[in-house]
């Protein structure tokens, strides 16, 4: 499940929980599910680190290296 799917799912679960048209058992299940989904969302959104890389074409092939210069530009 990617972030977008997790958010969509979370929104759905929240809406049915907010509608209050469920039984107590169902609500508890939804609650557990939404807690889990919100954790997935938080984890997913924090997955990337903001790496900035640049492709370098060298004699022995194409390499990816950190693009440090950009910070100073």
């Amino acid at each position: 499940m990617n972030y977008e799917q997790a958010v969509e799912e979370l929104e759905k679960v929240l809406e049915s929980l907010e509608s209050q048209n469920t039984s107590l058992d169902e609500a508890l299940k939804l609650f557990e599910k939404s807690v889990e989904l919100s954790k997935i969302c938080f984890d997913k959104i924090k997955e990337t680190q903001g790496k900035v890389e640049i492709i370098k074409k060298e004699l022995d092939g194409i390499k990816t290296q950190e693009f440090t210069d950009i910070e100073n530009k």
Partner: protein
Amino acid sequence: MQNLTLSITQLNNYIKNIFDNEELLIGVSVYGEVTNFKISNGIAYFDIKEDGAQLSCVKFSSYVPFAKNGDQVIVTGKLNYHVRLGRLSFVASKVEPYGMGELYKQFLELKARLESEGIFDESKKKPIPKYAKKIGVVTSETGAVIRDIYHVTRKKNPFTDILVYPAKVQGIGAENEIAEGIEFLDKNSDVDVIIVARGGGSFEDLSPFNTEKVARAIFASQKPVISAVGHETDFSISDFASDLRAPTPSVAGEVAVFDYFEELQYLENCRERLKRAMTSFLEKKFSEAQNSAQNIAQNIESRVKIQEKELENRVVLIQKAMTTFLENENKKLNLLVAKLEKSNPLSILKAGYSKVEKKGKTISSISQLKVGEMIINKFGDGEILSKVESIKEKKE
């Protein structure tokens, strides 16, 4: 008329002053067809001409050809009279295609052809991912464009990964590098969206983005491509072929990444909503339970009341029945008493009869008596002692 004799320098300076101070000529634009185009040491020399007229032009800081002979151009700049050479030239600050220049004609032809092939079809455009984790950028590694994209994306989302494919964005061979960059980034599985960007420039400067090569590379890309070429007013073939045209590279950066802080806030809100929804749900259930408990209690109470009433009614009925019963019994008793009263021996005695006893024994037959024996006659109000004088048997 005054006859003046001047040095060449004096005359040339005088002429230069006339041109420099002529307000009409400041920032003037002039159009014509390019001829004698050449570049030397970063300076472009060319003439523009029309039937019966020609103008020498020069453009500084020109390292790549921005026009070729035969192009119709509009040149903006100022007239400069060169004192040392005694020559007049037009110093161009900007050279743009004029009317249907050859390049522009080619542009329109290519655009029409690709359009008829369906390369620009709206139905073929891929959506730009809402939550890109890694963006690929094809542009020059030097210059303002990559820096602008970097800063704009960092501000909105400091955690989006960026992969730059450095490519020449103008001049010969630029279209090949741009197309290679798109293909390379398309194959990189981590890249979610590709930006193809270039800053502002002349129509010629932007020409690599108006090539079939770049258009086809964009169209073939499995990953969505955002095209941001030149200024807002510039439209390139790559814009039409792309999945999204951004008016500037900064805007491309802006739309490629999601707002990290907003998203974090949204997730926090979701947690709050979750808490609120659950709390109010439980409160609702609790109050429902309370209501039904109250209903049960009220129900029980009213039932007890009904039963109490029933019981009361029964007691009254029983009491009535008892009273009736007692009254009846009383009547019966009275009747019985009356009957008894009648059969009381004393009552018989009162009617004129007396009881006969002999030596304490009741005498009920004459056979028990002999003449001369003493008997007692008991009356209701006393007794007498009598002597049997005679005995007469009753004849049947």
